[in-house]
């Protein structure tokens, strides 16, 4: 019973998904006549973050705003704007946050430099550890005759009792 309702839900979900895909592809296809412009739109919108679902880019997102922004970019491509002009348009409205590759500047320094700093820190720690270990191993000399005698005495202590 449970299995049946589950599989029914699955069929329904697939159906919904496919109709949604068809609906969006027909509306977008109507606007997309020029393959070169379409390619530019694709590459541009892959660089831009969708602010509604922040881990998706504008190309992947189906959010209303992403659709609007794709339309806006398409309009600007048709108007003959350069890629830089289009990116600037987005940045003046939504800030560096829309860029998946934000420019290097004061506020993004930690973002860009952070991984390198962590890597250097790790290398430094590793080097220190290796050096210490090498020193410890160098200090590992065989026991002297007196020390061997003492060790034997200690080890044999238990046997005599």
């Amino acid at each position, binding site marked *: 019973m449970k299995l049946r309702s589950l599989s029914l839900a699955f069929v329904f979900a697939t159906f919904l998904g496919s109709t949604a895909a068809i609906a969006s592809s027909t*509306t977008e296809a109507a606007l997309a006549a020029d393959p070169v412009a379409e390619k530019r739109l694709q590459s541009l919108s892959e660089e831009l973050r969708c*602010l*509604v679902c*922040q881990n998706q880019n504008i190309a992947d997102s189906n959010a*209303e*705003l992403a659709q*609007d*922004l794709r339309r*806006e970019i398409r309009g600007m491509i048709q108007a003959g704007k350069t890629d830089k002009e289009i990116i600037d348009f987005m*940045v*003046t*409205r*939504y*800030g*560096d*946050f829309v860029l998946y590759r934000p420019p290097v500047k004061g506020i993004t320094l930690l973002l860009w430099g952070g991984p390198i700093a962590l890597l250097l820190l790790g290398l430094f720690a590793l080097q220190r550890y290796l050096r210490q270990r090498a020193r410890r191993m160098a200090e590992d000399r065989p026991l002297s005759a007196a020390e061997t005698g003492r060790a034997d005495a200690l080890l044999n202590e238990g046997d005599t009792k």
Partner: protein
Amino acid sequence: MNRYYWILGGFAALVALLAIGLGLNPRDVPSPLVGKPAPTFNLPILATPDKTFGPGDLQGKVWLLNVWASWCVSCRAEHPILVDFSKKVDVPLIGLNYKEVRGDGGFDMNKMSPEEEKKLAFQRANTWLKQHGDPYKLTVMDLDGRVGIDYGVYGVPETYVIDKAGVIRMKHTGPINPDVLGNKIMPLLAELNK
């Protein structure tokens, strides 16, 4: 023993970092528009559709621009605060109705003519304001969300504080709560109106 303190310390630092990260609001994206002139527009007014309003009409005044729509659930949450604000404070509050019909998601826009959309949008906006009260000096209708893009709107409701020179001084994304109003917006308004 000493090295265990190091590991424990590192772990504690990581926990602290993650705790701070979880406390931040990912929606709170700093707007590049703060400090810039409010983008100009010319949109029809809800009450008088044959007339338009633009930011230039309020030049020399401090005012608020509040982005709303009847389909926006969070707008319902902040609305009583705005109604109360409009009764007590003498600062013009302008409503920007954002994609009243298109943003709803319940309509097939391919089957709707621009005239139908316009009629439906005005009707829906009017009904909503009648139901919940109208705190706005006036509301303008941004049917296709084009002005919303200029203002960097990405989550309704949003509120902008605009100064006498027409410069955006603050942007709040999400519903206004008593804390934001009392501790951020009101002091700013007082300062700007000095």
